[in-house]
């Protein structure tokens, strides 16, 4: 009994040491920042103005598990062949790389809305840009507080 107890304690200490190493490495893994997201937006829509509104970005305020964070994007649009949402891009500024996902909608969708689940490494801002069929751009951003990060390991 006594022997077994010692072993358990040693294991605990070992895993504690590993955890400390992981914590030391963590800041080096996070590379993306707000500037990286800006750069991504510039890459696609250089020199264009981004308007506010139209986008409903539905993410939890506090995510307990950064590995699975639900995200729903809905854009106000009649979704007719004359006026529809062409593309939606979502970025995050605190993950190792800024990209999360992009959607390409068509008028056949009937509704510019989609849900997915993403990984977030830490508390950060989610930035969404929607491109309409007439070329107009809209943006929205929101912060998600992450209790346990979902990257590295």
């Amino acid at each position, binding site marked *: 009994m006594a022997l077994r107890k010692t072993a358990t304690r040693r294991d605990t200490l070992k895993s504690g040491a590993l955890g400390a190493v992981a914590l030391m490495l963590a800041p080096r893994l996070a590379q993306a920042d707000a500037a990286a997201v800006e750069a991504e937006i510039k890459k696609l829509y250089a020199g264009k103005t981004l308007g506010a509104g139209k986008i409903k970005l539905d993410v939890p305020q506090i995510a307990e598990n950064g590995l699975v964070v639900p995200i729903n994007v809905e854009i106000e649009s009649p979704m007719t062949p004359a006026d529809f949402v062409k593309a939606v891009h979502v970025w995050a500024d605190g993950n190792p790389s800024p990209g999360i996902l992009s959607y390409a909608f068509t008028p056949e969708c009937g*509704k510019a809305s989609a849900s*997915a689940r993403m990984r977030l490494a830490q508390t950060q801002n989610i930035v969404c840009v929607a491109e309409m069929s007439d070329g107009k751009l809209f943006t929205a951003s929101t912060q998600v507080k992450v209790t346990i990060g*979902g990257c590295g390991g």
Partner: protein
Amino acid sequence: MSNKPTPRVRVPATAKKDEIIEIKTLISHEMESGQRKGADGNIIPRKIIHTFTASFNGKKFFEATWHPAISANPYQSFFYKAKESGEFTFAWTDDDKSVYESKAKLTVS
């Protein structure tokens, strides 16, 4: 992942004309981000599904591009405006170029 990814799709079997239906999809896949380190200290190479497409009667109507920030076993839901009876094709494209497909029929009354 050693197992072959299995897609699961939920589509209503019937719909009224011009009804907007919700389609929910899920596929079992590890979505290895390429940022994790294995037990040997080396980085596990990236292997994710990077593109998902939904088509109806051969015409693509929705596409999603996924980055490594998408969770394992990726879930995706979206909408479709029913016009006529036909068949949906859902396709997931992996980094190793394999394509996983799933089909579903829709009857419009």
